[in-house]
């Protein structure tokens, strides 16, 4: 069995009095695609925000490659290879597509401040490299033709892909996808599945939240089911489809 990449240990998060995530534990192994499902408001996105460091858990710990990253801010988690997309899209709308993706490359371009403002040769070299990486990621998603468009002007589906390219440009080891298929039509959804598989094959571990059962069940090797902040089941898609609790709460009977 592959090495454990991320280990979530008994984390909880409450906002005021509301418990959004309640004592959840699970592991993700290297190279896996894992999905989290559950009704709206069951704490999926909060869980994502805890892992990516945008929220700090009220209790519990998170380990990445065995390192305790529980208290790390988001930028630090990003710097060790945890990259993410956002449910409601969080593109830099005033920037062009390529600039957005370049922000993803940001982590790996050790740009010097002085070489940047004085435009030393090192700056041009780094910019060129960064652009090559960015273009490569855009091509991977088949959207290199819109590189110079302004992000805010793109249709929703394309914005999703740009956001994914941006996350990929950070060369993540763990990619968190928050509802990657929402807003995409059937055609785009099929492509999305291919892309996600391709990313996994390149060695990126993926944790995703997805409502489209079709996608979830066909992509994920393991599924976690949440309800009101609690983990109610974890297993292969087949296992969870047979789980009586899951059927009762989520899938519905009959």
């Amino acid at each position: 069995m592959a090495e454990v990449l991320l280990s979530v240990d008994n984390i909880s998060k409450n906002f005021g009095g509301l418990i959004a995530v309640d004592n959840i534990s699970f592991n993700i192994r290297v190279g896996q695609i894992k999905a989290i499902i559950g009704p709206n408001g069951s704490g999926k996105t909060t869980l994502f925000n805890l892992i990516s460091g945008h929220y700090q858990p009220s209790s519990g710990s998170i380990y990445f490659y065995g390192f305790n990253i529980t208290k790390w801010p988001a930028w630090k988690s990003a710097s060790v290879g945890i990259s993410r997309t956002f449910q409601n899209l969080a593109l830099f709308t005033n920037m062009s597509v390529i600039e957005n993706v370049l922000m993803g490359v940001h982590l790996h371009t050790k740009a010097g401040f002085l070489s940047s403002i004085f435009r030393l040769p090192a700056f041009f070299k780094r910019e060129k490299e960064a652009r090559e990486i960015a273009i490569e990621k855009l091509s991977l998603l088949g959207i290199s033709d819109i590189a110079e468009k302004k992000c805010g002007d793109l249709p929703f589906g394309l914005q999703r892909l740009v956001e994914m390219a941006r996350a990929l440009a950070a060369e993540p080891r763990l990619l968190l996808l928050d509802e990657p298929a929402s807003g995409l039509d059937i055609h785009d959804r099929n492509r999305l599945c291919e892309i996600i598989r391709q990313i996994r094959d390149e060695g990126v571990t993926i944790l995703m939240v997805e409502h489209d059962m079709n996608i979830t069940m066909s992509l994920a090797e393991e599924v976690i089911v949440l309800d009101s902040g609690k983990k109610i089941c974890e297993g292969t898609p087949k296992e969870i489809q047979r789980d009586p609790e899951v059927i009762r709460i989520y899938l519905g009977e009959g």
Partner: protein
Amino acid sequence: MLSIQNLHVSYGPIKVLKGVSLHIDQGEIVALIGANGAGKTTLMSTISGLLRPQSGEIKFEGQDIIKFPPDKIVKLGISLVPEGRQIFAPLTVLENLELGAYLRSKDKKGIKEDLDKIFSIFPKLKERKNQQAGTLSGGEQQMLAIARAFMARPRLLLLDEPSLGLAPMVLELIMDSILELNKEGLTILIVEQNAIKALEISTRGYVLETGRIILQGSSNELKEDPDVIRAYLGKDYEEITER
């Protein structure tokens, strides 16, 4: 009662609805199902006057309401229970209900009657009428949202995702109360991701996908439709994964 013809709505450059047509008759419960991002909430917001469509027409009892502001639409008798409930959390339950009747706040007697009616349908709200609405449980907040819309004395009630974040037991309760309101003569359009529940209580249904109605029919027909089953009812995954 309500008829929508060829409705187009965009957010900036992004087209969300691309020619939606549907109609609702007096006394019906109509379900609108579809995945996240299909445009269901946009449709609801457009009917209730929060959004302006690019083109198309919306007629309520023969009257063109497309240019009406939200308050006028409420006055005509269409009330929306928005997605995510959107109750006034720091206000008390009673204040929320009073604001539901904002447009007829002079009609003290009528409000009193409606409050009694609401409290008989949702006794929980009576118990908590002086509590801050934000302290209610998810299910109670959903009841409050429905009750608040009811206080405007609508004839057409639009429900956007009433199942959102509710436990199954509570959902059952909410659905029962929706049926009860329908029996009192209220016409209802319900938008749901939880297609099973929506098709269970409704008479007819539409399937919305990426801004277009791709399917319509009686709820019973839709429940049997293979595409609907595959995409929305969450059954027979095994078949799909093994294919």
